């Protein structure tokens, strides 16, 4: 049933009318009332203009992700996270009796029995102390026939040792308040030992660059974490070389994408530009080609790299992409880049004219 319409309830109806939320009878009632009442007709007209203004707004989604690169990136990250979740061991009954869960279970009782609580804490402390002492003795004293050494300042690893490392041997843990993760590496043979450190340590950097360069030996997650860990060190020549190699040869496009992102902070070295150009020219994944193109343009425009200029090879690759790339975005953006290059050349020529 259509509610009777008065001037007092017309305004809300006008809002629903403008939003298209009224059924036909209700719309007819609004229109009929507006024809009879000039004040309500003005209200209705105002609502309709407001609705038009709202519809005319350029939505942030159209500005922030018009090319849907963000969507592609979100998908890629989500599927990586799902891969990671799938690789984690499933919860078993053992998970139910972890110390934290036990503490949680007894907490309620402890609150109401402070005496018991104090006694229990003492007991837990004594047990922990005994256990820690025993554990320390085990790791501090080498057992004959099975020596285990913990070294905080790692000794150089041999090539043979590097080849024994696999995904289960390496652990990267983020550290609060630092961009450097803590890296722990277990070397099993020929001489078992544990290496700990951060990417600031040359030996740890060497291990991480080895991981990045050996796609077949480590899974995608470890390689991605290693790239992230090394990103702040991207201006190191060894790291730069490994990232460039990953960009050229890693089998997973997500790793190659991450390598491009890391190389964005790698300064203006020619080898970086060469790797980015190769990715733009040869990578079979359009997402990687797009990132390579974006990185190239960023380098070209950035004030940080005033020495970066595009040589004939780069120009010819851009031309080739503009004509032949299967992706419309790459074709358009390559054309745009060539246009910018031409205008930069003109600027430099006219600049030279002004300041001989």
């Amino acid at each position, binding site marked *: 049933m259509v509610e009777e319409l008065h001037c007092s309830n017309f305004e809300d109806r006008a*809002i629903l009318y403008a*939003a298209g939320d009224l059924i036909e009878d209700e719309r007819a009632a609004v229109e009929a009332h507006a024809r009879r009442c000039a004040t309500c007709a003005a209200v209705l007209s105002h609502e309709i203009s407001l609705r038009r203004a709202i519809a005319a707004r350029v939505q942030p989604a159209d500005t922030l992700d018009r090319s*849907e690169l963000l969507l592609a990136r979100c998908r890629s990250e*989500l599927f990586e996270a799902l891969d990671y979740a799938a690789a984690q061991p499933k919860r078993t009954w053992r998970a139910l009796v972890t110390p934290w869960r036990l503490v949680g279970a007894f907490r309620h009782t402890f609150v109401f029995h402070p005496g018991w609580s104090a006694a229990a804490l003492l007991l837990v402390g004594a047990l922990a102390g005994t256990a820690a002492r025993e554990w320390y003795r085990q790791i501090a004293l080498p057992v004959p026939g099975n020596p285990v050494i913990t070294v905080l300042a790692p000794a150089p690893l041999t090539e043979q040792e590097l080849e024994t490392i696999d995904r289960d041997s390496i652990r990267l843990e983020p550290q609060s308040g630092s961009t450097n993760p803590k890296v722990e590496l277990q070397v099993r043979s020929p001489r078992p030992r544990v290496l700990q450190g951060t990417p600031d340590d040359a030996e740890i950097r060497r291990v991480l660059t080895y991981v990045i360069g050996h796609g077949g030996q480590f899974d995608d997650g470890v390689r991605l974490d290693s790239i992230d860990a090394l990103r702040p060190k991207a201006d190191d020549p060894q790291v730069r070389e490994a990232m460039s190699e990953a960009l050229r040869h890693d089998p997973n496009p997500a790793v190659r994408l991450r390598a491009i992102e890391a190389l964005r902070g790698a300064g203006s070295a020619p080898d970086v530009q060469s790797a980015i150009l190769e990715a733009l020219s040869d990578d079979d994944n359009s997402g990687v080609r797009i990132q390579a193109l974006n990185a190239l343009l960023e380098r070209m425009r950035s004030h940080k790299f005033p020495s970066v200029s595009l040589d004939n090879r780069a120009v010819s690759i851009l031309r080739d992409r503009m004509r032949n790339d299967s992706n419309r975005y790459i074709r358009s953006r390559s054309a745009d880049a060539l246009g910018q290059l031409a205008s930069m050349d003109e600027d430099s020529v006219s600049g030279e004219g002004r300041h001989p």
Partner: protein
Amino acid sequence: MSDVIVGSPPEALPSSGTTAVAPPGSSVLSAADDRILIERAQAGDRSAFELLVQRYDRQVLRLALNVLGSAEDARDVYQEAFLKIYRNLHRFRFECAFYTWIYRIVTNICLDHLRRRRSHPEEQPPLLRTVSSGERRDADFFDHQQETGMYSDPERQVLGHEIGRQVEAALQALSPRERMVFEMRHYQGMKLRAIGEALGTTEETVKNSLFRATHKLRTRLEGLR
């Protein structure tokens, strides 16, 4: 090198969004298709889940971008929402439409973000600026492209940008819930009942939120009259 894992941008650029977008599931997707995919995903079929993601994630990201106005925040919302959906998919019992269930999760996360932002205004991203014709030199490539419709007329374009800027500023003044209702009604094209289902409230409450939001906007946009 292996084939595509990371999705590439579509060949056709999405149109500039002055039109309200229909809710997911309303176009070529049928509820029956969804049901099959959901059942397969609930049985542990990862590829079925990925297909479901690809059906709905564009709208989810759009909603988050429009409401939060920040690519980083929208990325967080996207991740959090779909991981939550993945972990809780076994609890979905087909008692409502799948997109309603998804929107319930997404809107809750967006509302949390908006509320957090209100309580920490210093973390709020700058108001999204639309690009005027005088600023185009430094703008992104896509801002250089020729548009059809109102964007091909420079005068209307400038006017549209100005209106857009004022609407954007007015939207910032709404409460998180009003903002969400407004976005879902006007830019996602959802019906009041569907919005109510997504927000876990009645159609009447949604209507009242919409009225309040419209009143506030009208006051702030008085100059556009």
